[in-house]
């Protein structure tokens, strides 16, 4: 158990790190301590342009889970797409449906492909059961609509991420309505026949196989 003096020390050592190696070590230590008070520092690290430290910070935020979500949303960095992509990877992995709105708008309108890919994957994967039952279906339908849109994007990696999102949405336990699953399967069939990119088609083959296997 870390006392509050120890917590302060961990946070300060991130803020005062004077070399990339010390920063990475300090972020790892703070992430492992799983301190709620460390959340702002971990989020700040996402913008330091140090991939190793950012990956460690994302891991720490994901382990903290839902408690990190409000600040992650509030502090999305509008001016640094690298930082934003890490934030969305964290939000996607935590899968708290309170992130739905920011995920939708990032997936549809962000200029940075890395941000849109992370958001697309996250959209399919949210823990829908945490939503009130009357909100669940409309939210899933919005996610579906956005992912379908992305599955027509000119960039292959966005379409690939849309397939990953659509597969997760179709496999979600709280999705039982066929009116959600059948449009996904129909879109997959279409992509498998028409997509210009071999790897996007291959990803659909895998999604089709895995969905089929899990439905038995």
């Amino acid at each position: 158990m870390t006392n509050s003096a120890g917590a302060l020390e961990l946070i300060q050592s991130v803020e005062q790190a004077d070399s990339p190696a010390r920063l990475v070590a300090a972020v790892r230590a703070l992430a492992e301590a799983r301190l709620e008070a460390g959340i702002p520092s971990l989020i700040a690290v996402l913008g330091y342009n140090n991939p190793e430290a950012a990956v460690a910070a994302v891991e720490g935020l994901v382990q903290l889970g839902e408690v990190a979500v409000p600040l992650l949303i509030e502090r999305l960095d509008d001016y640094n797409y690298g930082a934003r992509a890490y934030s969305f990877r964290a939000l996607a992995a935590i899968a708290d449906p309170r992130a739905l709105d920011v995920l939708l708008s990032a997936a549809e309108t962000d200029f940075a492909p890395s941000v849109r890919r992370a958001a697309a994957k996250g959209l399919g994967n949210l823990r829908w059961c945490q939503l009130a039952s009357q909100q669940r279906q409309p939210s899933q339908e919005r996610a579906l609509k956005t992912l379908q849109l992305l599955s027509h994007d000119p960039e292959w990696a966005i379409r690939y991420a849309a397939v990953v999102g659509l597969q997760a949405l179709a496999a979600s336990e709280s999705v039982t309505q066929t009116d959600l699953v059948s449009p996904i399967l129909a879109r997959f069939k279409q992509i498998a026949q028409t997509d210009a990119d071999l790897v996007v088609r291959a990803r659909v083959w895998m999604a089709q196989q895995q969905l089929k296997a899990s439905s038995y």
Partner: protein
Amino acid sequence: MLEPSTKQDSEFGSPGSEPSGAEALTQEQALANLTHPDLSLRYYAAWWLGKFGTTEPQVVNALIAALDDEADRTELGGYPLRRNAARALGKLADAGAIPALIRCLDCSDFYVRKAAAQSLGMLGDPVCIPVLMKLLEGGVAGSQLVPGRPHLAQPSEAAMEALEALRAKEAIPLIQPFLEHPVERVQYAAARAMYVLTQDAVYGERLVQALAASDLKMRRTLLLDLGASGYLPASEAIAHAAVENSFKIIALKSLLENHLKQHSSGCLSPEAQQVMTLMDTLL
């Protein structure tokens, strides 16, 4: 490796190396500009035709004529227009350009020779194999850095890449010594070509091991090499390399494409599924 690097640029949302206002030109204007008094317009027109031009004979012939340009010279005696024309002819994929490109392999300008070698590889005609092999005949000794210049005496890397693309197994004994070339980058080009031509895992592993030791810029290039090699056991090493996710995704994509093209049975192997599972984690 001109093609993958332009793809990376678009991945990072930067404008890349394309001059602005590209859409403003028509093919007629570009053709006319190839002989314009303003030399910079000639240079741009050659690039434009490679990017947006059609393979009509008049386009190909105009670019072939530009390979003999004498007007556009650098201070060091280089031929900028010839370089761009040679690159453009590779992209236009018209076999009619092959004899002219082969002549370019004797040009005094290193960068013209390099562009011609790359384009001959892209055109995919095995008839080019003997002339490309000639570029390697001096061995490592004949392919040292030119004093005061940032390049070797011959475009050895480009030649190996082209021979790899042409699946020229007869070039294996010529490529092998380059594994010991003093320039690291050339060693890796040799390892990649050796893997493609022999399918011997030793050469794929050499690239994987280099990933751990090299600096960031070299790691990025190595990822693209591994992707192009189609050496599937490299997928884990690519996914965990200390490089930006966008590079890893591109490398895994090209790895998978090369694999799928070789095994086009329509069903997915466990290895292919493994590559995609890794790609999913990088989104």
